[in-house]
Each structure stands twice: as C-alpha cells, then as structure tokens.
C-alpha cells in the first residue's frame, strides 16, 4: 500500500516532465506550421518591407554559415587538444586541461558575447561581423567538443593501443589507423551536438554578429549577417503585429527542425557505435 502511494506520488511529481515536451512541441507546431509555407522560404528579404519580412532564406543561410564557421574553427582545436591530452600531457596537465574545459562550460554564453564585443569587435576592429560570430560560437562549443572527444578516445580499449604500439606505429599512424577508425562515430556525435548548440545560441551573437535586415548573402567575413535565432528575437517583441508573430512561430519551427535533425543524427551515430 505504502509502496503504491510512493510510486503514485513520484509519477504525479514527474507528470510535468512527461507533458511539457509534448505540450511545448505541439503548441509550436500548431502555431508555426500554418504560417510556414513555401512562399515564405523563397525570395529575398530585400523585396519585403519592415515587419512583413517573409522570406526566411537569408536568416537560414546566416544561421548555417555561423554554425559551419564555428565548427570549422572549433573542431581542429578540439581534436588537437584531445590528442594533447591523450599523447603528450602529464597527469597535472591533463587535470588542468579538463579543469579549464569544465570552467569554460560553466560560463554563460552572454559572457562570451561580451568578451567577443570587447576583443573582436572593438579592439581588433572586426566590427559586427560574421567572423566575430563564428569565433564566439566556436569558443562556446569548444569545451563541449573537447570533452566529448576526450571521452571518445578514452573508450578505445587500451589493448588496441598497446597492440598498435607493439607493432611500432608512430603517433601519427596510431591516430590515423587505430584511433580515428575506432572513434569516428563518437567524434561525429559530438560535432553534431556542437552544431545544434551553435544553432540555438542567441544572446552572444545578438550584438556582435547580426543585424535586423538587409543581408541576403554576406559580402565577406567582415560583414554582418542575419540569423534565424536573432530574427526570432526581434519578431518576438512585435506582439501586436499578427503577421510578424506568424513569421516568428514559423522561424521557431524551422529552427527546431534544424536542431532536432542534428540531434537525431547524433543519436543515430550513437547507435552505430553501440552496434559496431
């Protein structure tokens, strides 16, 4: 009797956790799908005036550019850091590296934005630009990527490494022929999750990389972009304009589809690792 009470109580407490994901998702889809039609995705923002900007391609392009740039910048550093951890570091350096990564993970994204504003926008005179946004997002996802790849390398059985060493493989050969083939699904999983994270961060790029409108394709790395995330924020403030609100929900749906696709990809890769 007592046990049943305890279980019922637990389920009651847990109910919000069951219902919330479904409720949030359904509400967003309910609001966003009707507003989402192909006409919105085509054309260029230059054709439309303020508040009725209905072509979302420039925003999607901007978001994807920021995301790809961030990954291209962060991935080599994360991989290099992992190899340093695995091959060159002594115990103290290892602890220090992990400590630094935990420290970086804890810092709120907006603080990265502030530092980017000081150093990149003002001191290096990059201005509000695509490159600034890429670098800031790269720093934000760096600790995630690095910790993930350290774990991936650690999960390779030490016998494999020892056997390769016994065959006289050099560090480079060891990495290329043993570690990468064994760890690539895990590394890719981390990368995909990092991409999802870069797509959903808004605060740090709001005042360092993006503008309200006027960009369909950035001229160079030093020109600003528009992005889905920040577009959503601008539109979210326009509560009274029915059309803007529709577009906001549509943007939310697109953003969630992109993020979910990435994390589903990550899950699929995780399963490959389990099976293979």
């Amino acid at each position: 009797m007592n046990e049943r009470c305890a279980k019922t109580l637990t389920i009651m407490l847990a109910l919000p956790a069951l219902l919330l994901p479904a409720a949030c998702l359904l509400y967003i889809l309910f609001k966003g799908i009707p507003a989402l039609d192909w006409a919105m995705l085509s054309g260029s923002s230059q054709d439309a005036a303020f508040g009725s900007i209905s072509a979302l391609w420039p925003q999607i392009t901007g978001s994807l550019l920021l995301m790809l740039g961030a990954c291209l910048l962060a991935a080599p550093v994360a991989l290099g850091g992992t190899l340093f951890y695995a091959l060159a570091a002594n115990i103290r350096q290892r602890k220090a590296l992990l400590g630094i990564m935990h420290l970086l993970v804890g810092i709120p994204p907006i603080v990265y934005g502030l530092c980017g504003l000081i150093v990149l926008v003002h001191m290096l005179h990059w201005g509000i630009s695509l490159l600034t946004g890429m670098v800031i997002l790269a720093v934000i996802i760096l600790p995630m990527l690095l910790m993930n790849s350290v774990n991936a390398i650690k999960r390779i059985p030490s016998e494999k490494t020892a056997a390769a060493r016994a065959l006289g493989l050099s560090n480079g050969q060891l990495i290329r022929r043993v570690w990468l083939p064994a760890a690539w699904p895990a590394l890719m999983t981390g990368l995909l999750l990092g991409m999802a994270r870069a797509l959903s961060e808004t605060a740090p790029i709001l005042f360092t990389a993006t503008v309200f409108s006027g960009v369909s394709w950035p001229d160079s790395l030093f020109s600003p972009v528009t992005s889905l995330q920040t577009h959503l924020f601008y539109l979210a403030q326009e509560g009274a304009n029915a059309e803007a609100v529709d577009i906001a929900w549509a943007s939310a749906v697109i953003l969630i589809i992109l993020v979910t696709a990435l994390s589903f990809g990550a899950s699929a890769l995780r399963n490959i690792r389990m099976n293979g």
Partner: protein
Amino acid sequence: MLNLWMRTSALISLLVVVVMLGFLLQQSWPYWQHDGLNPLLSGDWYPYEHLFGLAAAIIGSFWAALIALAIAIPTGLAAAVMSTEILPGPWRSLMRSGMELLAGIPSVVYGLLGLWILLPLLQSNLHLLTGHNLLAAGLLLSVMVLPTIMVMTQDALCEVSSHQRDTAASLGMGWSARLWRVLLPQAWPGIRSGILLALGRALGETMAVMLVVGSMDRIPDPWYNLLAPAQTLTSRIGREIGESAFGSMHFSALMACGLLLALITITISMLAHIRSDKISVNRP
C-alpha cells in the same frame, strides 16, 4: 607538425580563459575603481546619473534561479526515478528523447512561448498589472533546466550497481526504502552536479529571461514579492549592451555585471566538477 598542432590547441584553450577573464577585468576596472564594492549593495541603476547599483539585478538573478530550481529539482528527480525505476525500457528511452528535445529547443523559442502563453496566463489568473515578473522568469527557467537535472539524475541512478539494488531487495527493503536509503544516497554526487549545473545555467540564461522579467531595476519589496517586474544580471546586459559606448562608465558597469556573472558561474561549475571528478586521468 602533430606536436605543434597539439600544443597550440591546448594553449588556445588556456588562452581563451586568460583572455576572457583578463579583458573583462580590464574593461570593468574603471567601474570597480570608481566606487569599490559599494554598488553591490545599492539598487539604484541610472546610467545617465552615473549610478550603477547592482543589488537589484543580483537579487533578481538569484530569485529567478531559485524559483527555477525549487520547481525543477522535485520534478526532475521524480521524472528520473520514474524513468529508471518504474517504467520499462522502451518508455525510458522515450522519456529521455523527450527531455533531449526539451533541452534542444533554443532559449529564444522559450522566450516566445513565455511571452505568448505564460505572461497572459499569469496576468489574468493572478490579477496582476502585468505578467512580467520574477515568477514568470523562474517558471520559464524551470522548464529550461529540467532536462539538465533529469538527465544527470538518470545517469547517476543508472550508475548505481545492480549488486547494490539486488542486495537491498534481498534484505526485504521495500521500493521506497530502497530509493531513499540506497539509490538516492549513492546517486547523490551525480544529482548534486546536475543541480549545480542547472543553477549555473539558470543564472546565465539571457534571451528567455530578458523577454519576460520586466527589466525594472528595483529590489523586490518586500523581499519575497516575486510578482512585480524585476531585473536580472543577464537581462541588464542583453538590453543595455548595445546602447553603451565602448569605454564609457556605462560600458564598464555592464562589463562588471559580466565579470560578476562569470565569477559566480565559474565557482558553481568548479564545485560541480571537483566532487564529480570521476574521469580517470590515465593514458588511454
């Protein structure tokens, strides 16, 4: 070549921390020099009168985070217990996917949800002047940190060995006794890390909070009044950073907010890291 790459990468990681904290301190230095630590105790923030009191924002940040945790901890723990100890396997992974989905929704979308569902609800049900208040921020944050707590607790519960479970069961301990006396105590280090990470996330969340908190620089009066518009550190930064001139005292004060936020969250994540440092540091 390989060596150079490895060492450069490690150095970059270190450099990021040093550069970030260094420049934050450098830019906020005029602010600290101007008034010392006094502004931490004052709630008056009037940039044009050169009054930069941080107390209202600090108190607001902590209130919002505490409300979030007060809701998310029981719910998250119960959800984790339910999924690992009550539900059969397939349901467990469904719940986990749900949580990952919740965690994947960008914070600005939560802001949109808050603005369009939560605020009108609060305003009409509690008969308030406006739904913009600390409670709204706390409620929104609780949804956002729920996945952190739930997933960390789930992992921690799964790590309790089956030997411990079987032994407790074969001593005739009931379900709730096993939960309270064996599972939760042994999973506590993991749960604690989850809670601390959630606290850090709640303190540092910007977009959603900024849209619903009301942005009034006022210390809640009386101190437990959560139904009036208030301010948080992140919302202050997000709203005002664009309008302050680089190098001005206003800019410096905002950097001080950022530094403060960074120091608080670093302390929290270090606390979470030190005790949960189970990752062995052996050569793979």
